[in-house]
Structures are given as structure tokens and as C-alpha cells.
């Protein structure tokens, strides 16, 4: 397991206490798992994705990731409608381990209320939480 100082936490995304990240671009928000989450889970062998068109409220479970160790739910950081899913994960779920902020993104949503992003943690706050 890596030390927190060896993990990568970009400045341009927002984090949740459940270790999802959200990145806003135009009116679309991309969501994935943080480097800490993928490191804790170990090798991811399956990602259960929602369908495009599904809607979720902030904090709802929208899918799950299975690692060699366990099955974990993933929760939507802000309310919105699914407008894209990362179909590459079907054949290559390990992208979540290898490239969690780029190739390993999970869903794209159209937020219901973009101001909910303000509720989420920035890098410094997230690091503080991880360091407990």
C-alpha cells in the first residue's frame, strides 16, 4: 500500500468523503474514484455502470466496483442525469487503477444544481481528511 504522500491528488477536481472525484467542464461533470480509493481497493476486476438517462440524487449509489478484495458501492457526488458512461471499463476495469483521473473516469453527468459542487472538498481538505 502506498503512503498518502505517494498518491496523486489533482488540484482541479473536487473530492467526497467516499473518495469519488468530480471535475466540471462546461455543463458536464465527470466523476471517478480517487487515487486513494483505487489504492485501497486493490485490483479492480469489474465496474457496474448505470445507464445513460438514469437520474440520481446527491449521495445515491449509482454503481459498484469490485476489486479482488471486496465489492464497494460508488455514490454520486452531486445530483444529476447520466449523459455518459465509460464503456472502456467493461473490457479494461483496471483503467480505474492505472489512470483513475483520466482513462479510468466512470460517469459523466448533467448536474441538476452545479452549486452542489461547492459542498465538496478541495485537495487540501481531502488530504486533511485522509491524514485524519
Amino acid at each position, binding site marked *: 500500500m502506498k503512503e498518502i504522500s505517494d498518491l496523486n491528488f489533482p488540484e482541479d477536481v473536487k473530492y467526497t468523503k467516499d473518495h469519488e472525484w468530480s471535475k466540471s467542464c462546461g455543463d458536464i461533470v465527470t466523476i471517478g474514484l480517487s487515487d486513494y480509493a483505487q489504492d485501497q481497493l486493490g485490483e479492480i476486476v*469489474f465496474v*457496474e455502470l448505470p445507464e445513460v438517462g438514469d437520474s440520481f440524487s446527491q449521495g445515491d449509489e449509482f454503481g459498484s466496483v469490485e476489486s479482488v478484495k471486496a465489492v464497494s458501492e460508488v455514490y454520486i457526488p452531486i445530483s444529476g442525469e447520466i449523459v455518459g458512461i465509460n464503456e472502456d471499463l467493461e473490457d479494461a476495469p483496471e483503467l480505474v487503477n492505472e489512470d483513475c483521473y483520466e482513462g479510468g473516469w466512470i460517469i459523466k453527468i448533467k448536474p441538476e444544481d452545479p452549486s452542489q459542487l461547492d459542498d465538496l472538498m478541495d485537495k487540501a481538505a481531502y488530504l486533511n481528511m485522509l491524514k485524519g
Partner: protein
Amino acid sequence: MNTSLKTTSLHQWHKDAGAKMADFGGFDMPLWYEAGVKNEHLAVLKSAGIFDTSHMACINVGGKDSFALINFCFTRDIVSLKTGRCVYGAFLDEQGHCIDDAIVYKFGETQFMICVNAGMGAAIASHLDSKKKQMDVSIEDLSGKIAKMDIQGKNSAKILAKLIKNPEIVFDKMPYFSFKGHFSNAPDGIENVTLADGTPILLSRSGYTGEFGFEIFIAPAAIVALWEKTLIAGEEFGITACGLGARDSLRAGACLPLSHQDIGHWKFTNHPWSFALPYTADKKGFTKDFFGAKALAPADDDKFVYPFVGDTLRKANTGENTEVLDENCQNLGQVLTCATDMGIGWLENKIVSINTPDLPQDLKIKGLSCGFVMVSKPLEPGVKLSLKEGKRSIDVTFVTDIRPNRTARMKLDNFI
């Protein structure tokens, strides 16, 4: 790290290798290394892997009545156990519940060693002590005095041959569940096995992966050197250090139980490991009386443990929140183990492994979930079940065996 955890002699090596560590049986142990569980699991199926198993405990049992005491407490009838052989079984309490499973090694008519799980040395030693009464038996808990590593996979013997003296003599007549040598002074009747530098080892042709290989008992001060030399000797074979994650997925695929998870505080009966009980040939009785046997008689509230295989590699969580549903959506029990064997897949209605000969070229083996469920009524093999937790559900089939084409029982000659 929780500072109250115990460590093995290889602890610093694991940390230096970047292992993800976790508490297992009170020991800070590696779950996986940088290669990851999948690669570690596949390395054992394709070539070889090594495991630090120094967290396991050993107990010496000696004296005139040692045989009588062990045969009264152990679920296997060791009356026919020969010197130089070992056997798997369990120790039960008065309710017929499993205190722990174990392997009993016979050094001679009055000298045995019992290998039990992490942290169980004192418990089993004290259980034996409570049953010995007037018997002439000495019981010594060796916890912390022996280190152990397992080398598993089809290239294990080729790698070990580079590390031990006289490998052709050592490997001659060494069937499954036999052993040679001793980790300190070999008792009479046990020939010595030593590493090239003279370090004595107990070499046992056994393991916990279902694959060909050995368990090696050695003095704690000597294990780091052996571990490192094994990695160097095995480099040409792609040997991989493996953590408890791969150990769990390999043993689940091999249909082997994890003590305190698949066997435990319930009756040690109606499970896939009936060979661990001393049944008579007609299966109607036992060949001997032993502690806990009376409690094993059938009862209305008996539970049944069965192996299962999933339709895909998707897993279910273990624990009370996951239901085991039959086709009428009736909840029959709970999931004891669910792991993914990364080396197996379905070919039509048969399970195949990456070691199954003549597989179709276009078959992509991604792995299947597998494990054990405990249910409230007897089922027939082939029954479909759903393991359901909340919205999530996976479909599984009750099977009698999981990973095919395992190598553990094959003749040693095939591997040198």
C-alpha cells in the same frame, strides 16, 4: 499499522517490497505485492509463487501416549499414519464445533507435530492439555519458534532443486502429504534435509493452493535468506511473491476451507470436507471415538455447506447482509467465502482452467467467483442460487468441485 499486531521474520521484507499489509489472525501480513493479486494467483497456476506462512503455529506432542491423545482429539483416525506422512483434519469441542483445522505430522511412534492456524497454537495446546489427564504426554507450543514459507506451482521442485542438498534423493518417493527433514535436530527415523549452506528444513509436500508444491519449516533466523534465495533461483521461472489475497483465491478455487470462516463454531459435518472425518466405508459410522463425535449426530437444525461457482467473476460480499436465494426467492442461508479464481471460466456448461488441455483458441478466461455457502436444507449439485445484497445480485451454481486440472496430487516425477 496497529502496534499490537505480531509480525513474522519477513515483515520488513514485505514492507520493503511495497506490500499492502493487513491484520490476519493477529499478524500484520501482506495482502498483495506490487504484482497484484491476479498476477500472483496466475503465477502459481502457470509456474510458481511463494507465500510467507510464518503466522501459522506449531505444537510438538511427544511421549508414550502422544498417539492416543491425538487420536482422541483429532477428527482423522491416525492409526494408519506412517512416520514421514502428514494428514489434514480438525479439533472439535464438546458441541462438535471446529476449534481449528490442522495438519498432524508423524515423526515417530511417540513424536508428532501439529500445525494450526495463526494465533491458535496456545488454544490447541491448552485443549490437548485439558484432555490428557493421566496420559504420559508432553505438549510444547512452538509459536514464534518456527518460521514457514510455502512454494506452490508446477515449477516448485525445479526451483527448490537449486537450493537444497541432494535434491534427487530428497524428491525420491515423496508423495502428496509426505514430508522429510526437520527444522532443528531430526528425530530418529527422519532423514535430514538441508539447504546448500547446511540449514536444516522440514520439507512437506503439501500446501493451501490446490497446486503442486511444498511447505517449508525453518528456523526464524534463516527464513529471510531462504526467501530471497528462492526468488533468485526462481527468477528464470517467473516466480512471484504472493500475499494472502492470492492465497485466498487459490484455496477457494481448490475447494479448501478457511478455518474460522468456512468451518468454525457450528457442527463439523455436512460440508465438502467429509474426508476430514473418520467415516467407515459405508459412511454410517466412525472408525474411532473422538472428542466431539457424539455431537455430530444428525439433527433437525443441521446446516449444510456447499461450494458454488458464479456465472461471471462478479462477487458477493460475505456476511449477514447477503441472502442466499433459491429459485423461489426463499433465503436459505449465508455466504461464508466468495473470492474470484482468476484462472477459470465457463466453457458451455463445464468449468475449465487455464491449465485445461486443448482449450478453444478464442476462449477468453477472465475468472469466476467461487466460494462456500451455508444453507438450512440439503441441495443437489447443479442447483442455481442467487446471492443478493440490497439491489445487487449474482447468480451462482452449486457444484461439487471448482477449479479443474489442479496439480497438487500429481506425481512429483511430472515436475522435475
